């Protein structure tokens, strides 16, 4: 849950990037890390295997700046995408203020997207979180791949985005869509906070 310090006028929110293995969650954080000035981000912590697959999580704190008089910080996390790491996914998901679902646009990965989305719903439900009220956006990554390999944003919206939440096409490796996705989830999380949503 968001942490609000009224005395110091600070807000801290937790955003979790979720999705199947190799969909580009870590790549999103790496791009943000490389793009944001050092003074406005912390060190990126990656708990990964020797093969650089996320084992527990990646973590990147960023300072958004002052919004409505509150110094606003976002803590960006990724979860391990591989299906057998569900125990750690559940732990990282605890207390999330918003979720970015990073789908792999490749047609051959469609079933993995569906499985991961179902897993997200199950894990949120197990934590007593109403999926319908949690800020959520979709990012359809790898849209830069050849057209015959990927599903279009419209096709992915039809297949996955049955709640009609904001969605963004992306090429996280080169940064396309990363900013728009972060902006999208930031707006939803802060709007919920402004409307009197959760604050620890």
């Amino acid at each position: 849950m968001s942490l609000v310090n009224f005395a110091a006028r600070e807000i801290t929110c937790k955003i979790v990037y979720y999705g199947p293995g190799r969909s580009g969650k870590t790549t999103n954080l790496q791009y943000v890390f490389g793009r944001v000035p050092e003074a406005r981000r912390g060190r990126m912590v990656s708990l990964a295997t020797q093969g650089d697959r996320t084992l527990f999580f990646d973590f990147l704190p960023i300072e958004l700046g002052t919004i409505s008089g509150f110094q606003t910080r976002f803590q960006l996390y990724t979860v391990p995408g591989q299906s057998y790491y569900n125990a750690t996914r559940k732990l990282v998901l605890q207390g999330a203020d918003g979720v970015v679902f990073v789908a792999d646009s490749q047609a051959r990965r469609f079933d993995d997207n569906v499985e991961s989305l179902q897993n997200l719903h199950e894990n949120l439900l197990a934590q007593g979180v109403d999926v319908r009220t949690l800020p959520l956006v979709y990012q359809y990554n790898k849209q830069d791949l050849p057209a015959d390999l990927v599903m279009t944003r419209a096709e992915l919206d039809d297949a996955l985005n049955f709640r009609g939440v904001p969605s963004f096409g992306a090429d996280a490796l080169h940064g396309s869509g990363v900013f728009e996705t972060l902006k999208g989830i930031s707006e939803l999380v802060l709007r919920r906070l402004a409307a009197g949503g959760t604050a620890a």
Partner: protein
Amino acid sequence: MRCVEPWVAGPLQAFLDESSARVTLLMTSSGQVIAQDGFTRSVDVMAAAALGAAIVASTDAIAQLTGAGRYGAVLHQGTAQGLYLAPFDTRRGRWIGLVVFGPETSAGLVQLFFRDLAQALAAAEPEARPGGVLLAENFERELNASLRSLFGR
């Protein structure tokens, strides 16, 4: 010392005075910082909170898997300094303390005074949370400007 909620400051200062801890961090179970002392840069605090919460969460999960229920604390005794990590319950949910200490004190003393800290926090905790107007209706404009400057756009 920095505290998100002012009522935490008194008990925490008493703990710092008595335990001689080098670094102390109080956080929620999801890794949000409540109070800290000894860190030099705020962002390092957040990384430590994320990792500390992860250690406690994974330790809890292992305890459940192995039928141990719940472990009280995690202690790493290094040659130059030690790390004490302990969860405790508050009316606001589960909080976690992360304490780094050197040879000027001991794991036993840190543990003893940390127990006192948890009790003092329970006694000092106010019933109601402070409230107030959080964000203006047009916060999106400021958010967009902040994100654009963040990404150099």
